[in-house]
């Protein structure tokens, strides 16, 4: 399946745009997605931390990602 992944803040600069995409086997976990992203974008691994959001919720590393999910890279937040 092909997953579209939104990127914000510094992640937008790292992936070179407001979104990127990844071809993933079905039943991919968040942990697997993170590994894939860090292979493709080594700078992601150098952030203080980052989270993956699935459908507007912070996702646990063992969550499964489905093809229709809205997936986003959430670098360290700094609002307020």
């Amino acid at each position, binding site marked *: 399946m092909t997953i579209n992944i939104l990127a914000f803040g510094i992640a937008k600069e790292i992936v070179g745009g407001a979104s990127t995409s990844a071809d993933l086997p079905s039943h991919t976990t968040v942990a697997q997605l993170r590994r894939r992203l860090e292979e493709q974008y080594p700078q992601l691994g150098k952030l203080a931390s980052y989270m993956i959001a699935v459908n507007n919720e912070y996702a646990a590393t063992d969550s499964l990602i489905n093809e229709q999910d809205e997936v986003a890279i959430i*670098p360290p*937040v*700094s609002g*307020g």
Partner: protein
Amino acid sequence: MVDILITGKPIDTQACINMASSPQSGGIDVFIGTVRATTKGKEVVRLEFEAYRPMAVSEIKKITVQMLQRWPLHHIIIHHRTGILKVGDVAVVIAVSAAHRDAAFDACRYAIDTLKQTVPIWKKEVFLDGEEWVAAHP
């Protein structure tokens, strides 16, 4: 009432206070976050705020639900600005009303502390000689 807004336009602080006011309230605590001229000794030219808007609204809503569970509050108003801000501009206003002031103070502080930890909004500081996404790197 709970009112949450993520907006590219200037925040109207007085309107937030008016929304938080009610005849039952004896105290309103308001936190106003503004853009500081210097950070870590460097002069700030401007800030750029970016939000993952639907998730930011959803995370702020969670904060307000927790606040209402924890304190006897009347109204919670949380407005956050996005886009390019200059020094002195208002980035966030949180107004919380309650019958008594302790609840308003505690809840308002909880709101801004938690917002800074959980809400997907990002701030880039632009200096004379470069720029930096705040908190991005260790």
